[in-house]
């Protein structure tokens, strides 16, 4: 572990949800020597939830950046040292007071920020550290160590994962504390490649290349990455691991190929997000026994009420129908709290707060679902302002860490020009997601007469480990009831 020196605080990879195990540092928004205040955005992190801006939680001066952009590190990993404001002058040296494992972190910084080092030399040697420690800290544990990407795993599971070229960090553990066992790895191997997707996301644009490569040369992921960095041809390396698997140390010893050191390739944000969504959704479909219900709701009263409410207001104070749907869902969840919860591995205790995650599609591809805290407590104007703000920031990639990972349920609404209904996929660790199709005018029977009416098809997907269709049905019925008295949603 990297430890903070006196007067310092460590800025660490935040957890943006119970299920988040690791994140990729995409960019630093600050440099060494910069003064930061609590709440300042200091870094951009790519997670399974998309690209997030991360705030710092202390005032001070950035003394050292410990992780290079592009690196994927477990939650809790020290990313930077933040010193007290008064000590800014002393920060230049950036000497690390660390224990053994932490020395890897310091070595990593030298790799990232000391381009003067000879390309062919192992970066660790430059400061006299064992070469392998570089790989351990920057890329997750080297083969044979206890952890990969922060997920506890059994030795047999790790061995199996190595043989199958799987990323243990991408496998959901079924043991206590999420420990990954042999069966989990075998299960992951059998599915459509969720763990490999995670691994591909971790290795960036090379995803396809490494899958193809896996068939020819057997190497650990960390060795593969190092080989690419150094420009080493894996085909020419003799593996010293079990069954000739190429280990990190083998790569470090190997001669550098004629191509020279390769630049670390970064996936485009769209590619990275697609891979992350794929991993999260594959995990959802693999683990969550979904049930689905749909229900057609008469929006006539709600639309007339909203139209009248908007009519005498300037455009800046108008509310879109989606806000009514989100508010109705939040209030309905107070009555069916079982669906407003996080799966913890064996149960899903209801959450006290209703933080609706609003699914937002991004131009250029991708999807995020940032939370609106205390959705059920917001009046329509406040809710509309919050939704509008979060949509705008989501689209320019400026969501905050504090908004991510706190959603207790998600609402996906396909706007006013989309399709009739949506059968959504639950976002783990949530246990339900509510969908709304396009409100549209359709024939409806009112008092024995067929009349044109604005209808919306609402749907819910629930986690059968936690609730049954009965709960989902109660939720949809409650949403319907609330939408018949729209004025009650505005408080």
């Amino acid at each position, binding site marked *: 572990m990297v430890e903070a020196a006196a007067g310092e605080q460590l800025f660490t990879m935040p957890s943006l949800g119970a299920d988040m195990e690791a994140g990729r540092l995409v960019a630093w928004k600050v440099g060494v020597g910069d003064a930061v205040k609590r709440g300042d955005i200091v870094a951009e992190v790519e997670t399974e939830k998309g690209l997030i801006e991360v705030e710092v939680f202390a005032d001070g001066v950035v003394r050292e950046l410990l992780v290079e952009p592009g690196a994927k590190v477990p939650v809790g990993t020290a990313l930077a040292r933040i010193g007290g404001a008064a000590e800014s002058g002393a920060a230049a040296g950036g000497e690390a007071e660390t224990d053994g494992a932490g020395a890897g972190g310091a070595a990593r910084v030298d790799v990232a920020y000391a381009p003067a080092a000879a390309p062919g030399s192992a970066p660790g040697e430059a400061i006299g550290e064992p070469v392998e420690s570089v790989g351990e800290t920057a890329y997750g544990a080297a083969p044979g160590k206890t952890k990969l990407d922060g997920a506890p795993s059994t030795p047999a599971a790790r061995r199996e994962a190595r043989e199958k070229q799987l990323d243990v960090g991408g496998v959901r553990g079924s043991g206590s504390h999420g420990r990954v066992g042999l069966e989990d790895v075998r299960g992951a191997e059998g599915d459509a490649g969720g763990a490999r997707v995670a691994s591909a996301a971790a290795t960036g644009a090379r995803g396809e290349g490494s899958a193809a490569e896996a068939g020819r040369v057997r190497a650990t992921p960390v060795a593969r990455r190092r080989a690419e960095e150094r420009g080493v041809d894996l085909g020419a390396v003799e593996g010293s691991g079990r069954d000739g698997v190429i280990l990190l140390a083998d790569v470090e010893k190997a001669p550098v190929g004629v191509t020279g050191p390769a630049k670390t390739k970064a996936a485009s944000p769209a590619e990275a997000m697609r891979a992350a969504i794929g991993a999260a959704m594959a995990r959802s479909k693999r683990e969550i026994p979904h049930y689905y219900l749909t229900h057609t709701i008469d929006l006539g009263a709600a639309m007339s009420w909203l139209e009248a409410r908007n009519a005498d207001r300037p455009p*800046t104070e108008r509310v879109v129908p989606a806000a009514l749907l989100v508010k109705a869902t939040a209030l309905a969840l107070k009555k069916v709290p079982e669906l407003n919860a996080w799966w913890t591995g064996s149960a899903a205790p209801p959450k006290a707060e209703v933080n609706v995650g609003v699914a937002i599609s991004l131009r250029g591809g991708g999807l995020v679902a940032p939370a609106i805290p205390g959705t059920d407590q917001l009046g329509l104007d406040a809710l509309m302002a919050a939704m*509008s703000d979060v949509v705008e920031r989501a689209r320019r990639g400026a969501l905050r860490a504090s908004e991510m990972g706190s959603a207790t349920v998600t609402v996906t609404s396909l706007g006013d020009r989309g399709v009739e209904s949506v059968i959504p996929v639950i976002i783990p660790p949530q246990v339900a997601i509510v969908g709304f199709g396009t409100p549209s005018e359709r024939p409806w029977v009112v008092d024995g007469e067929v009349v044109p009416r604005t209808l919306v098809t609402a749907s819910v997907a629930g986690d059968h480990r936690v609730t049954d269709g009965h709960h989902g049905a109660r939720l949809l019925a409650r949403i319907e009831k609330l939408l018949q008295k729209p004025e009650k949603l505005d408080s």
Partner: protein
Amino acid sequence: MTRDEILAALRRHLNAIVPGEGDELALDDDIRDELDLDSMDFLKLVQGLHEDLGVDIPETDYGKLDTLEAFVGYLSR
């Protein structure tokens, strides 16, 4: 307000919503379809025009405003 002023304001606000694409839009393209605008985006456009040009487009008229040409016709009345 001239036709050119209206078009310039429309393209400026569309560019703010969908960077770069407001310039590409033809006069008779369906704005919502071409730029994949949802109701929140369209409201942002109406808000922008309200702030810029001082025009207040009531919600009941949103449906008529499907192309740049339709906006120009509506706002030059």
